[in-house]
């Protein structure tokens, strides 16, 4: 249960909320758990599925957002990856693209190496980092209803936003076998070029 007594976030609840609430998103999921969860549930959504680049997911998302200002870019980050790239949070805070929605699935664990605790397990609050780095909106969503609420606030007034969603660590199981990185890139680029800039 969350701090407000709601149900707990799950990969299923968080991804379903993004799909339901954000129209026509470009998705940038962190390697490992997030890419695996997204591929298993929504294999056909336009996404730059990552198999590498740990610590850089949000910076990749920033690059996509700068290149495609007319599309909403949803970064599905992980706490471990983001902790590796806190400087990149500051760069996003400088540029603040309104089409960038930075979701952090915070399981407080290094998910790919056996669930060892990350710094967020000891009280580090990534939404506070984002707020200190001048993100216009940086909130914590303890449960599914709060998460949907945060997404709706973003849709109502798109401003560069971080939403940290704590969820329990669980072994996600083996990742589905997806296409090779070069094919992921090809399909993502084709999707981006499908809607040329106005």
């Amino acid at each position, binding site marked *: 249960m969350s701090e407000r007594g709601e149900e707990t976030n799950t990969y299923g609840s968080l991804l379903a909320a993004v799909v339901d609430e954000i129209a026509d998103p470009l998705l940038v999921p962190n390697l490992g758990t997030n890419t695996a969860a997204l591929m298993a549930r929504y294999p056909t959504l336009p996404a730059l599925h990552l198999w590498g*680049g*740990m610590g850089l997911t949000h910076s990749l998302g920033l690059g996509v957002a700068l290149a*495609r200002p007319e599309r909403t870019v949803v970064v599905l980050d992980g706490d471990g990856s983001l902790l590796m790239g806190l*400087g*990149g949070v500051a*760069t996003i805070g400088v540029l603040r693209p309104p089409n960038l929605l930075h979701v952090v699935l915070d399981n407080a664990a290094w998910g790919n190496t056996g669930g060892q605790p990350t710094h967020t397990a000891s009280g580090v609050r990534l939404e506070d980092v984002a707020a200190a780095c001048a993100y216009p909106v940086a909130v914590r969503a303890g449960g599914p209803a709060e998460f949907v609420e945060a997404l709706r606030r973003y849709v109502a007034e798109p401003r560069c936003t971080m939403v940290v969603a704590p969820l329990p660590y669980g072994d996600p199981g083996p990742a589905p076998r997806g296409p090779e990185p070069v094919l992921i890139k090809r399909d993502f680029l084709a999707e981006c070029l499908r809607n040329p800039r106005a």
Partner: protein
Amino acid sequence: MSSDQRTVSRLSSTLVPELARFQVELGAYVPDHLISGVTDELRDRPGFQLVAAAREDEGLAILAGAYTAGTRGVMLMQSSGFGLCLNAIASLLLPYQIPVPMIVGLRGGIGEFNVAQLAGGQSVAPVCASLGIPYAAPASFEILSAILPGMLKTCFSTGRPVCVGIQRSLAA
């Protein structure tokens, strides 16, 4: 130096038009005094966006994201920062075949005073070689002009990063 006092450096006048010819519209950088003339010009260039990154690997990731969304970019950094880029190159740019030209101000060469710059600067060429990344550190503007079109062509045609080292003699 204010912009009205600034003169376009020879390094900048060699690099910038060639980048434009290859439709490079985005740059990321971490400051380096050897190539500051280039970043100064790119910052003010119409139709070009220059992003200040906090770290060099982050800059490569921003450019990688932009490339996968249809915009070509260039990375500008110092050799010490190139040392931070191994993961971004090896686990992102190479497997996804993302082309990014890297312009690297070379410390650690002849005349270097700082021992902390020596090994890093000297490692750029062998690191590029070990990753299969085309690399050149031209000794003159004439050679730079001669190789640059080919480096950029190889970069964007083959979907690989390339690296151009800028020696102190070509500094901004």
